[in-house]
């Protein structure tokens, strides 16, 4: 998928996360350099870049100086204990936090070349570029067809053939077409939990986003449905950039190219998933991954 990113493709060396300022971190550890060095994705440019992001709910700070890059056509997973800020960060990427009163954000988030928190940025247009899949499947109380077509309909698309094509393409993309092609007119709420979640993925795909944000998409699914969604994530990677928040360590290991570990609103470590899980650079990461806390 092409995006309008006028910047030159950065050299691999440029993709390194800048070394954090030690003063901002917990004093108990020193954060090592964590190079982003997966050869498979190094050729792609950065899709999402978070720079020195601080987020406050009222007077309570929820994110501290987060610096992060997500390479295009890769899967980045956010892990960490509950309340560590990983979902909050995810929701910063399509400005869903705007819906909450009393939220204050400092820092910069770039999607492609767009600074999404710049005053001139159109939130509506941004959200079309970043599809979102939620923890609990939330199909609309409409037919399967209308669910998938929703994104196009609100953009004013009324042409039946275009809608039908988009619905078929998206449902195929989400691996749901074979199961529902004969009952597109039925209510989406008659589908099983796993099917509903894949329908939500299809709904997100229909508007051809660049990034797909997934907020614990499998936490309410059984193992088989989870496996289907995970397979799907690996397929979608070819076309989209995916950021996934997960509680499931094995899932992060299975599907993601890169992993970011958060703790208490701080990004502790980020890097290649393989390295994170076999040879984490930080003691806390190791403790968390091995289940010693969290």
């Amino acid at each position, binding site marked *: 998928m092409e995006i309008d990113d006028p910047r030159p493709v950065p050299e691999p060396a440029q993709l390194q996360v800048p070394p954090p300022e030690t003063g901002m971190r917990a004093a108990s550890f020193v954060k090592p350099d964590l190079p982003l060095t997966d050869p498979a994705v190094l050729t792609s440019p950065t899709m999402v870049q978070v720079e020195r992001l601080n987020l406050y709910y009222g007077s309570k700070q929820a994110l501290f100086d987060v610096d992060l890059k997500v390479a295009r056509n890769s899967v980045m997973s956010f892990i960490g204990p509950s309340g560590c800020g990983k979902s909050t960060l995810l929701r910063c990427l*399509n400005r*869903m936090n705007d*819906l909450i009163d009393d939220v204050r954000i400092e820092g910069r988030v770039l999607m492609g070349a767009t600074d999404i928190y710049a005053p001139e940025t159109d939130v*509506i*247009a*941004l*959200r*079309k570029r970043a*599809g*979102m899949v*939620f923890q*609990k499947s*939330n*199909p*609309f*109380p*409409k037919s399967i067809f209308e669910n998938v077509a*929703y*994104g196009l*309909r*609100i*953009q004013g698309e009324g042409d039946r053939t275009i809608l039908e094509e988009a619905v078929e393409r998206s449902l195929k993309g989400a691996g749901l077409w074979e199961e529902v092609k004969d009952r597109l007119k039925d*209510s*989406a*709420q*008659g589908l099983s939990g796993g099917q509903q979640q894949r329908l*939500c993925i299809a*709904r*997100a795909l229909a*508007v051809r986003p660049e990034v797909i944000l997934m907020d614990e998409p499998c936490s309410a699914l059984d193992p088989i449905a989870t496996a289907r969604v995970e397979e799907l994530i690996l397929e979608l990677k070819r076309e989209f950039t995916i950021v996934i928040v997960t509680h499931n360590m094995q899932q992060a290991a299975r599907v993601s190219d890169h992993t970011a570990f958060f703790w208490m609103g701080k990004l502790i470590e980020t890097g290649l998933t393989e390295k994170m899980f076999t040879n984490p650079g930080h003691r806390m990461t190791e403790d968390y991954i091995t289940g010693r806390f969290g």
Partner: protein
Amino acid sequence: MSRLTDRFRQGGVFVWFSGTLLAFCLAMILSLVGFIVSKGMGYFWPATLVQVQTPDGPVLGEITGHEPARGEETEKVQFRVGNRDIYGQDFRWVPAQGMGSPEQPKDVLLIERLEYGPFIGRVASLSHEGQVVATGPQALAEAMKRLPEANRQRHQIQSIEKGRVGELNRRIEKLRLARRKLEAKGDQAGLQALDAKTAEIQATYDQVQASLEQARTEARAWTLNLQTADGQDKEWPLGSVVRMVPANAMGTFDKLGVYLSRLWEFVADDPRESNTEGGIFPAIFGTVMMVLVMSVLVVPLGVITALYLREYAKQGWLVRAVRVAVNNLAGVPSIVFGVFGLGFFVYGLGGTIDKLFFSDSLPTPTYGTGGILWASLTLALLTVPVVIVATEEALGAVPRSQREASLAMGATKWQTLWKVVLPSATPGILTGLILAIARGAGEVAPLMLTGVVKLAPAMPLDGTFPFFHLDRKFMHLGFHIYDVGFQSPNSEAAKPMVFMASLLLLIVVVVLNLFALNLRRKLRKRLGGSTF
């Protein structure tokens, strides 16, 4: 002791307690409906006519009441003797002492008439244009045979009076208004043209009147010579007879036929005799139509208000105050709404509309007087708090996850509301509408001030352009009950009508509610199970 506490803890006692209360409520509702049904439904069954001898002569009629001896009062029996034109009243109390043994003569009958209530007595003879055609039992048989034809003629006369004559009257009225306009302008040629038109219509009118007169004469040709139990004679045209019921000579099937025909007349016909006889169809129609117009008005009003309060307004002390005010509005006595409707809608809005658009017909008001539009608007105002509260609840019950899903797709807030939130909230909104209908259909007081009348000359929906006449006054079942029961000169005779009208009002409310419930059920099914 410990076992008792144990039972308390397990809640068994409270299950019984709440169950008992529920049973009590059900019993109350059932006895209310049962009472109304038993009082009203028996009214149409042809009652046995009983004749007794008293010191003052024979008394013939239906036995309608009985009062045992109490203190100085002796035992009394109430007879419905009919013949209001002869006796002056429909009912008579007869002391049980000195009353002969009751008989049920086969040859007596009850004749329902267009005027003066029923006649109870015997048919002496039947005449055609003054010539006696048959006497005794043959006269009754002949009259029964000729009755359907007489009724058909009467209906024809009525339809001419209502349809053609009414139409001509409307046209003459239009010409009169046009004439006034032209006179003001001083347009002589126009006036002459108008005169010609008026003369033309007048000619048609005279023609119709003549044919009506002829039909009326024909209808009067057949007359019944009637005789009361105490030997008074009465001549009565067959054309003014509705039904002849020789109850004592009838089998159960015949009685059933009379019963059904009376029931049908009650539901489908216009009222007679200052509403104490005939049907109540205009009242049923008026009630239903008013509720429908009210629903059409109240839903947008309530939903838009709730939408703003819940979704757009900044939640603060002002919104809280508005909510409290809205809830209090539901507790304002309905007559206050009636006064408001009269002052604001009828005189204020209606008066202004008349000045702007119907100034020709002033001083006769068009909208500046009570009408179904103003009554419905007043009721919509009365019931809007219910819809607002229900809609707010329904909006709040739409899961946050669905709003987020829509917003995350790049929908604006308005698109989210319109395409996701409102459809999900529709069953809840319909719940509000159901409550509003239940409240609105039973309301009488505000209507009396804003458009309900005892007898409306024309219905708010008919075949003349523009079909919906929102300016017309209308009849209403609730008001009908009040009027027939407590304002009529002959309320004793109309008592069963009160119960029947009550029953019909209940049925109308239930049917309207069932309609809305069914709509809600279908919507819910389509939405796939929502909590409301």
